[in-house]
């Protein structure tokens, strides 16, 4: 029964929350939705910070809430990272980190202090006072503080939303390494598709207090019937491995099982897992594989379906040879001229690929 099961229904004024999902107790599950969709309320209910009128919260064989019982938050083996770091101002960084750790029995501490400090790169901050830290540093300390309680479930409520773009870019790699190194299942609340694409394995999509879809993150992000793809700014996210480096032209090749795409040279070991983002507006379609083009990345693909964005443009969802999904934004006129239809075989010409991790 290695899964996380959540069923919450609650009526607050005219807002009806009625959410049920169960996900494997591993990796990162994104709880995704616009503001006011109820995602933070769900997270708070999982933590026991709110007490919904009806609720079931189960982590593997441990029941935190059901008809008969309601464990208060301090009796639940969870870690919670709030939107603002909320460090205790009267304690130093080290004492903040130790606050939760000391309240966990020694034999239940599964994560060593030094490992967490190293993982989040905060060794140099330990003696500092919390008000002298930058926003990104604070949030890293808050994440470390939550991890040091050796939680069975890590809950993160938009931990990056209070940070500026630069601080976000600096902290994302730490979050990714959490995922790879610690193996603590986590639920990550977000309204940013790029964050979800980088961090999440699965997602639960909320709208007005209800689950409207759930499943693999990469699939959901390219589904045309969901508001996720953001239409004009739609992106696809592909999984691959670093296959080789081309030093003379300063490129790194990412292999996608049979096909490959080039990104600007990155110092990554060959064979490492890589996630790339391809924006729909950077993908054009051709019926034949041209070699007389400046475009390096040409991938054979099959049309799955199409969706009009506006009277001029449309999105085409494509399946690559390895089963991954790609989006292309073209004009409706081109689509008509090419006779694009379901099941048609085409070549996707990808102008630009961004390497995420």
């Amino acid at each position, binding site marked *: 029964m290695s899964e996380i099961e959540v069923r919450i229904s609650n009526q607050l004024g005219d807002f009806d929350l009625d959410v049920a999902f169960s996900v494997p107790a591993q990796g990162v599950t994104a709880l995704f939705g616009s503001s006011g969709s109820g995602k933070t309320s769900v997270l708070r209910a999982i933590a026991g910070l709110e007490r919904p009128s009806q609720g079931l919260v189960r982590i593997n064989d441990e029941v935190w809430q059901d008809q008969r019982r309601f464990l*208060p938050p301090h009796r639940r083996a969870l870690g919670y990272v709030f939107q603002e770091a909320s460090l205790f101002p009267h304690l130093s960084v080290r004492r903040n980190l130790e606050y939760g750790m000391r*309240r966990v029995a020694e034999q239940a501490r599964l994560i060593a202090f030094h490992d967490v400090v190293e993982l989040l790169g905060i060794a140099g901050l330990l003696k500092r006072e919390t008000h002298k830290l930058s926003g990104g540093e604070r949030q890293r300390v808050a994440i470390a503080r939550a991890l040091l309680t050796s939680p069975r479930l890590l809950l993160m409520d938009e931990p990056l939303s209070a940070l500026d773009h630069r601080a976000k870019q600096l902290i994302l790699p730490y979050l990714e390494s959490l995922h790879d190194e610690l193996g603590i299942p986590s639920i990550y609340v977000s309204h940013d598709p790029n964050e979800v694409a980088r961090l999440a394995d699965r997602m639960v999509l909320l709208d007005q207090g209800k689950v409207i879809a759930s499943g693999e993150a990469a699939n959901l992000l390219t589904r045309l019937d969901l508001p996720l793809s953001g239409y004009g700014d739609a992106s696809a996210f592909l999984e691959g491995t670093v296959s080789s480096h081309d030093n003379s032209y300063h490129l790194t090749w990412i292999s996608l099982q049979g096909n490959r795409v080039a990104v600007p040279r990155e110092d990554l070991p060959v064979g490492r897992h890589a996630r790339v983002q391809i924006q729909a507006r950077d993908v054009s379609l051709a019926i034949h594989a041209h070699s007389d083009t400046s475009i390096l990345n040409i991938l054979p693909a099959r049309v799955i379906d199409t969706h009009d964005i506006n009277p001029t443009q449309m999105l085409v969802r494509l399946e690559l040879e390895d089963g991954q999904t790609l989006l292309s934004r073209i004009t409706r006129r081109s689509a008509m001229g090419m006779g694009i239809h379901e099941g048609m075989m085409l070549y996707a010409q990808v102008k630009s690929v961004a390497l995420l991790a």
Partner: protein
Amino acid sequence: MDFDWQPVWLTLKLAGTTTVLLLIIGTPIAWWLARTQVWYKQALAAVVALPLVLPPTVLGFYLLIMLAPDGPVGQLTQAMGIGTLPFTFEGLVFASVLYSLPFVVQPLQNAFEALGPRPMEVASTLRASPWDRFVTIVIPLARPGFLTAAVLCFAHTIGEFGVVLMIGGNIPGETKVLSVAIYDHVESLEYDQAHLLAAGMLAFSFLVLMTLYLVNGRYTRSHRP
């Protein structure tokens, strides 16, 4: 000049006892007022604030009636075997606790409200039980509030006059506190003695307030978020 120190010690004892008792009684009241959402919250806050606006003689008068041998509290204290409270030191403590209640509850309530729910929530997700959270998070973070409450309560009790006169009278060593002693001296035209006590009170009050402002100012500066 033969100076009588007894009223000074008695006053300090009264103020000290009242402050300790009020911090114990006032903290849960302030915590509850800061957290609760019930509709009668404002009414209770107003009751707590009553001693701020009531003439001390009004408070003293009702206390006297309540604590008298045939009053409700008087009957209770007699049944408990501690006799009646008017014109005793214990009676003064009882009256001072009521009289200084807002001076403890209001600064504490403000301090608790300023904290907001977040620090307690964070601590609860870090496995701290409610009592643990209060001791390790709320008390240190609300320290300026506790300090203000204690100092204001102490100083206010020292300056108490009307209530003491109504309920305590003027028994040397039992209820004759500083303010009453000054009044006594003036009545009997012993201006030197009155001057000494009055100037002492003035200096003391100034020092207390200045210390309070200094300490709070420094604390706020070092804990600015």
